[in-house]
Every structure is written in structure tokens, then in C-alpha cells.
């Protein structure tokens, strides 16, 4: 049994919960999110050479990143940074969260998701900016929790990154 703790990070309403819901069928009710501030789901991912259980921690998003409970990330091996492609400010939010986590627990593998790709008409992130992030060697995906586009790809990539 190989397990890895993964945290969903991102601003308010960027689609973290929706992405997890799209990727895995939950057994815990989403009220945990509001009561305990975190909801945990599990998904077994089959990689070519092994199977890994991703334990996904979805943290209750608040607009105010200041109230983010960094302690939830302790012991995590990977991050899913989620940005809402229709709100430019959420990119800054995601990057700030990652910096805080790294300052506390050191660098760890992550994938960067520009979510809500189905809302093309309201998209505000220029391609140039995405290319630039890719050039840093980052794993960037344009996802849609609505259509499911690239959601599995992103999680799969992260699974292989955290088991390296």
C-alpha cells in the first residue's frame, strides 16, 4: 500500500471541490468542508509500475488567504494549485499559497491547473503567461471540472511526480 497526501490549494470558488468531485466519488459529505474546514477523498491511481492511493485534502477556500490553515498541509507530498481562468487575481492567490506552504514545509511537487476552461468567452489569462509558466518547467493544465477536460491527466501527472 503506497499512499501520498495531496493538498488542493487555490482561492475561493476556483473549483477545487468540483475538481475533486470530478476525479473521485466522495464518501464524506461536503459539510465537512464547512465544519472541519477540510474534506478528504481517496483515489487509487494506477501508474505503469505501481498503484498509488492519493489522499486528497480539499481545504475550505476563503477569499482571505490569511485565514488559510497551513497546518493542514503538513505531511503532504504534492500540491494541486488551482486557478480560475476567468479571474486573474486567483493566479496570484495560488502562487502566494504555494510560497507559504514552501516556506513552512519546503518545496514539493505540484501541478498548476487553470480551471473553468469551458468558459472561453470570459477567459482572462493570456496564452503568453501560460507559456511563460511552462517554460519554468512547471506542469500546467487547462482544466474544466464541468466537462472533465484534462482533469484526470493533471492528477495522473501529479501521481507520477510524487512517486518518483
Amino acid at each position, binding site marked *: *500500500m*503506497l*499512499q*501520498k*497526501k495531496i493538498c488542493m490549494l487555490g482561492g475561493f470558488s476556483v473549483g477545487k471541490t468540483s475538481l475533486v468531485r470530478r476525479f473521485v466519488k466522495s*464518501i*464524506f459529505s461536503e459539510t*465537512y468542508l464547512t465544519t*472541519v*474546514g*477540510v474534506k*478528504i*477523498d*481517496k483515489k487509487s491511481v494506477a501508474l505503469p509500475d505501481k498503484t*498509488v*492511493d492519493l*489522499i486528497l*485534502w480539499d481545504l475550505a477556500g476563503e477569499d482571505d488567504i490569511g485565514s488559510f*490553515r497551513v*497546518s*493542514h498541509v*503538513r*505531511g*503532504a*507530498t504534492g500540491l494541486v494549485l488551482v486557478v480560475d481562468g476567468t479571474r486573474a487575481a486567483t493566479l496570484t492567490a495560488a502562487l502566494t499559497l504555494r510560497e507559504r506552504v514552501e516556506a513552512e514545509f519546503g518545496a514539493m511537487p505540484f501541478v498548476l491547473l487553470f480551471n473553468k476552461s469551458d468558459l472561453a468567452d470570459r477567459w482572462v489569462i493570456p496564452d503568453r503567461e501560460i507559456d511563460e509558466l511552462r517554460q519554468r518547467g512547471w506542469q500546467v493544465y487547462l482544466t474544466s471540472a464541468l466537462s472533465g477536460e484534462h482533469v484526470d491527466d493533471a492528477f495522473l501527472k501529479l501521481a507520477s511526480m510524487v512517486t518518483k
Partner: protein
Amino acid sequence: METLRQLLVSREISELSRVTHLLDEPEQLAAAVGDILPSAAARAPHAQLGEALAPAVERAVQRSIQKSPRTLTDILYPVFLPAIRKSIGEKIDQTFQSLNETLRHIFTWHGLKWRFESWRTGASFSEVVLKHSLVYRIEHAFLIHRNSGLLIAHVTADNATSEDPQLISSMLSAIQDFVKDSFNEKEQSGLDTIRFGDLRLWSEVGPFATLVSVIRGNPPEGLHEIVRDVLLRIHEESSQALEQFDGDGSQLASVEAQLQTCVELKQEESNEGFPWLVAVVALLLLSLAGGWYFLSWQSAQRWQAYVSRWQAYVSRLEAQPGIIVAEQQARDGQFYIAGLRDPLAADPQSLLSGTEVDPAQVHSQWQFYQSLEPEFVLKRLKASLAPPDSVRLSIDNERIVAEGEAPDTWIDRARAAARQLSAGGPEFDISKVRDVSPEVLEAKRWQAYVSRLEAQPGIIVAQQKIRDGQFYIAGLRDPLADDPQSLLSGTQVDPARVHSQWQFYQSLEPEFVLKRLTASLYPPDTVRLSIVNDRIIAEGEAPDTWIDRARAAARQLSAGGPEFDISKVRDVSPEARAAEHWQYYVSRLEAQPGIVVAQQSARGGHFYISGLRDPLAADPQALLSGTEVDPARVHSQWQFYQSLDPKFVVKRLTASLTPPKSVRLSIIQGRIVVVGEAPAAWINRAQAAAEQLSADGVVLDVSQLRELDLAELNHLREAIQTTDIFFSSGKVVPGPEQTPVLDRLADQIKEFAQSARKSGVTARFMLTGHSDTTGRETANASISAARAETVRALLKKRGVAPELLLVRGAGTFEPAVPENSQAGSSTNRRVSVTVNLD
């Protein structure tokens, strides 16, 4: 040699002597080692350094404690305090629980067995008791990585189920974080117990892993210790693997075996009853202790204090209802009391408690008696009469009052009790208890049923009675009335005990007559029957056959039944209806403008009509549709005529005069008024028509017509009419020099035609061909016509609408100039154009 040596190694020698000096001088050595000590320690292998330093550190700590225990205590205080606090709390719980358990078991058979077991195993007796007496079971044990919340291992007892243990593991650690954050719990211990009804989650926190056990039932506190031991052992065995755990559990397979020992912990229900023996012995011990306590007390306290307490007790007794103190005395350190007490009064003995009077010194003699105070009487009555729930007993002004409902047997008993009480006791008033004995109830219900029947229309109750618990009823009922049997439901009368005899009859109550009429006459949908003031009234339409049947029924009813009034039903037999439709059609025709109905009649199912119609009026045949008159049975004879109705006159004028678009015809107060602009020719025609119509008495007012203003066209017309196309002698096709003339002419004609059309006038152009006088007359005539045709074709080729072009040949008869010269004849060989407007 020495010199050589000096030469070769003098430098090394001086160095060596410096080092020797350094080693010999402690001061200097200390300074040197001090310089490198921190970095040396950092570079030493950790294990070895630890080993090397351990004895020294231990001794140092020992020395420090001997010298001044405070220093170290102060340092460790924040670390120890929480641990100690927790440990003491648990110890207390543990002691209590084991004491309870021990007490329960000392004197039972199991107790002996367990004593033996404790002796045999060397465990303390209470431990053995604990093991056997608490009912619980550890159902799950989770070993959770402290850092990440990931599950290291999970073991389940038989038959226990849970959701995905990996998820539970993470969720538990998240909840622990949550509690820690929420309540600002800074202690390391975390959340150690969660309870959900029968389930408890215990968590023991170790340095790297937390052991969570899920326990069903009542675990003894001592179980904490056992679980903690398991966790300790796991840490001892696998501390390195635990520390480096990164989600891969393969290194920690051995942990499961340890956890397994946890879930094997359980205690099944024992069948022991309440330990009576224990209770007795405990009581014994208590009273012994009490005696001893009293003796020592007595020697220490003053007798007087006792007496005053005694007096307080006595007056308390005297205040009790149902207790009468006859005698009381305090003598030789003993108390004596005698009197009467009602068995229902408070127990004098129990009243002692709380008075600090020692029961052992009290000697009482109580005689039972029955108090007549109302509250005691009430209690006794309640006990002896056992009133049903429907009766309420209460005290009102020293009287006992019973209210509610009861069967007669109970009322009889209550009455007897009341009689007894009347001899000195309080009054017992039972007048407010209603008799609800079964027979009375049943009779009431039966009466309710009977009056329900009597209220029913169509039911006449002739006789009814109750005998031997059976109910008899007889009477008349209309077949259309409600069924007496079904009316029983809801009355609580037992149908099996009801014997009915019903005779059918026809009720003459209007509603029944109505029902019967509805069933027998079967009125058509167009007839509505209703009851007004006890009369039955039929309204609507029906064929004569139905009306006849209704009339017969009305005659029958007149012999005693309600009146049946059918006067409001209209006869709608098919012929009558067809005639109505026909009349409707005729009136529709008569209302049509342009149609004059002269005669019409209906005969033998056929309809005949004759009259005049304007060709422009609506078609009488078409008007038939929607009238429900059968066209096959209509025979019409129409004579055409011209209606002088202004509307028709306007239609005709519009057709015959074709007024230009700029003219509007309208009818104003029966007069036809023509307004607008028109060419003079059209105005002339309109005036002629007006004259004609005036003979028929129709006014056509053309006074408001204005002549069309063709000023701008006149110029163009002039230009067109002065244009000639010339030809060479004997030729019918104009020479090429005429092409520009033709082009211009075509343009002008087109422009003129278009402008004229805009004014609502049609322009036509007459092309007249001419010849010179040379040659024969007939040839000249045909040449002139051919010239006109040619020009028409040439103009048509240039886009002029051919229907606007008229052609004629004038031969030599309309010369432009007198034909006496060469030039004259060439001027005459031409085609001229004239413009007509209409």
C-alpha cells in the same frame, strides 16, 4: 653532524617544541581545543558522540539535582506539568473504577475464582476483576502517521466494519488539528477521546504515530495503559521506519501483529446479578462506622445541643399531616416518642434524616390510624375505589369532588364510600360523575342513529325499540334514499345487533321525485331540472316527443305529488329547429347590402327564396355556410340588378372609370365624393358619369377634383412631339445618322412614361409614318406604315415598353411641308410622334 641536522630539520624541531609546550600548558590547550570543539562535535558520528557523552551528561544532571533540584525542575516544569496532570486524572478514574468493580465481585463465586487467578498469574486482584467485568470490545485499531495523517496500519476485529480506513485515518487527524486550532490547545496530547453513543475513539499519541482505537461499550480506564503499551512497543520496534514513513507501508508490516493484540482486547457480558451480599456487608460496615462515629461525637459534644435538635424534630413531626404526637421525652441520653400515624403519612423514621438526631437513640411507638384530613381520605379513596382514567378526584374547600365519566358499577361503589364518609369524614361529592355504563352508552348511540335516520329524506321510521341488548327498527324507505345500513358506520352501534325491517315506498318529497323523473324521463342535455319552492321546474329546449312524455308525468304527479312545471321548456323538434335556422339565414340575407329578398317560404321541409342581387354583392349561396340550413333543400331564384347603394356604385365606378392612383372615392353621408388630382380627360369622363347617375338619384360629387399639373411634363412632351426621324428615298430603315436622334427619343419617351405613371396617368405614343409624293399612292401608304413599324422596333430595342407605342401610316396625306422641291420631299420622308394621355 649536528650542524647538518640543524640545517635539515631545524624548522621541524622548533615546531615540535611549540606543540609540546602547548600540550603541557593546560591554559593554552584549553584555548586551542575550545576553538575547535563545536565543529568537532558537529562532525562526530551522532550515535558514537551520544554514547560517549551520555554518562557525563547523566552525571552532570545528577549532580545538578543534588546541588539544587529547583533549577532542573524549573526547566522541565512546562514539560512535566501536562503529563502529570493527565496521569493523575487517569489514575483517579482508574482507582474508582477498579474499586467499584472489586466491591461488586468480592463475595461472589466468581470472586473466589478470580482471587485464585490473581494468585496464580501474579496480577493484582483488581486487574483480574477489570479484565472480567467490563463489557467492551476494541473493534478497530488505526495506526496513523502523525505528520501526514496517512494510515500506517489498520486492524479490525471480527465482524466489525467501517468506511475506508485510509480516509478515516486522514479525517481523524484533520479533526484533531481542527480541535487543536479551534480551542487553542497547545498541548502535545491532542484529542484523546471522542464519543459517539456506544462508540468511543481513543487516541494515544506517540512521537511519530498516533494509535486510535475504536471501542464499543464501556472500556475500563486501565485499558488506556494497555493501549499505550502497544503504541510504545510499536515505536520501540520500528522507530526509524516510523520516522521516515513516506506513505509506503511495506517497511512497517510487522506493526500489524502488534495492533492485532489491541483488537483482541474485549470483555463479554457477564451474567452476574446485583451483588446483594456486598450491599449487606457494606451496610454492616456503614452502621459499625456510624456507631463508632456517634460514640466519639457524644464524648465531644454537649447534650443540650442534642435536645434542641430533638425538639426541632418533634415539632417537625407535629406539623406533618397524618401524624399525631401523643408523648415525647428526652431522658438519659435517649429519646422517646409515641403517637398515631396514618399509614399514608410521611415515615417518622425517614424524617429523622437531616436532623442530626441519631436514630439509634430514638425509641418510637407508633399506632396506625386513619386520618380524616381530606388529603388522606383522598389518597385512600384513590387506592380503594381505583377510579377509571376518565374520573378526576380533587379537593375543593375541604370537600372531595369527583368529576368525569364512569360506568354505573363504579358510581355505585363511590356512592357507598360517600355514605360511609358522611359519618364524620369530609364530604365526597360524586354528583358530577356522568354515568357511562355500557348499556346507557349503547342506548345513547342507538338514539343518535335513529334520529340520524329520521332526519334522512326518503326514510320514515315507524317503530324502534331496544330489547335484551338487541335493536329493532322498522319503517319505510325510498329506494333512492341513503341505505340505512351504511348510515350505521361511524355510530358505534354494533350492526350485528341491529334488526331492521324496511318497506320500500316512493317518497313524494320533491328531491326524490326529481331523482325518479331524471331516471325515467331521461331529459336531454338541453333541459335542466331543479327544485324551486318544492316545485320541480324544467327549463331549456327539448323535442316535442320529450315534452309530451314530460307532460304525461306532470299529469300523474298532480294526484298528490309536487308540481312539475314544464312550461319553460321550448319545443325544439327538428322541423321547428330547421325553420329557426332558415329564418336566421333569411334575416342574414336581408341585412346584406346589394341583396333584396322579395319572397321566401318553407314548405314540406324545403325552403324557397327569390329576390334581386347585385353582381357585386355577397353570394347568397356562400352565406349559407355556418347557418346549419341544408343547402340541398334550399331553392333560390335571384335576378341580377344594379344596386344604387353608394357602396355598389363606388365599386362599379372603380371598375369602369379606373381612377388614377391620385384619386380617392369615398362615401360621405350617402354621397359619393371624388377627391384628388386627375388628367383633364379623366375628369371629363367622371363628370359624364356623374350626370348619368344623377338621373338615378345618386350623387357623384366631382367638384373637388383638380386637374393634374403636367407642367413639367409639357416640356418633355413638346420635345418628343417635335422630334422626327428621317429616311432616304424609298427606304424604310433610317440611316446611321439618325441613331443619336433615336437614342434621345427613346430616353425621352421612357422618362415621360414613367413620370406619367407616377401621376396615375398612362401615356401612349403614336408613331406616324410619312412618305413623299414620288411613286404610286398605294406603295407610299405601305412605305409610311413600314417606316412607323421600323421606328417602333428600334425604340423597343432601346428599352421602350412596346405596348405604349401605337403605329399608323399616313402615306402622303399629312406632309410637313408643301412638296415642291427636293428638300421638301426629303423633309416629308419621316416618322413623327404624338403623345396621348389617358
